[in-house]
């Protein structure tokens, strides 16, 4: 009954994680991943990718750029 492969399962991951898959497809995907070491490893890395890149691209607003913005906006408000 479960005809999900690694390849077709990967294509469903986003919808799976967003909870928008039909229940029977959802169950089929979960059954495949639970039984497949490669997919278990793949899903973990797929889930971690956004977190790792979010942390690596979190920059603070430099004080000089903030100051120029405020000067600019005070001029605009006049």
């Amino acid at each position, binding site marked *: 009954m479960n005809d999900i*492969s690694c390849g077709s399962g990967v294509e469903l991951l986003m919808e799976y994680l967003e909870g928008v898959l039909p229940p029977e497809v959802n169950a089929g995907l979960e059954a495949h991943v639970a039984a497949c070491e490669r997919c278990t490893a793949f899903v973990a*890395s797929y889930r971690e990718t956004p977190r790792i890149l979010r942390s690596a691209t*979190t920059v603070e607003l430099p004080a000089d750029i903030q100051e120029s913005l405020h000067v600019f906006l005070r001029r605009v408000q006049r």
Partner: protein
Amino acid sequence: MVVPTADSSDETLAARAAAGDGHAFEEIVARYEGCVFRLACRLTSETDAPDVLQNTFLQVYRNLPSFRGESRFATWLYRIATNAALMLRRGRARKPAESLDAFMPQFDEHGVHVDLPAQLQIASRADELIDRQLLVEKARIGIARLPDVYRDAFVLRDLEEMSTTDVAQVLGVEPATVRQRVHRARLMLRGYLSDLAGGKR
């Protein structure tokens, strides 16, 4: 000193700013300048981000009177910031980015992952395996290598952590399209991280 505006909702502040209250506008800027700058860096570059930041708040200031509260204020502001970033990017001659297609997962003729579990999980630990400074630099490069439509959806959904519905509203596409674009971006960047960390795809 008690700052009375600190507890005001964005929407209350927006209404006061639209009515000419300069302090309310400053409070809006204080709340969002950091977020807008970060978003601008992710959608453009650190070189272009200051321009995006100024243009965003200029547009916010001018358009406050037309904010009707049909969406949350934050969504409205993010739409303005995103458009400011996209406008600026459009004006730049875009060097053809090296495709990330090579980092897509590979399957054999039965649809089975070609790579072994140990290789497939390496991207999960990219932040432990790669030097922090190098990762920061490579993350920026990898995201910039995404096709624009994937980059925009990925940045808003996964880096800014907006809901798929909000991203769809900001980008003017269907939620299913957002999901498809974010998915492709995740697959490419996952493989890119894996490669950097010494694994395969």
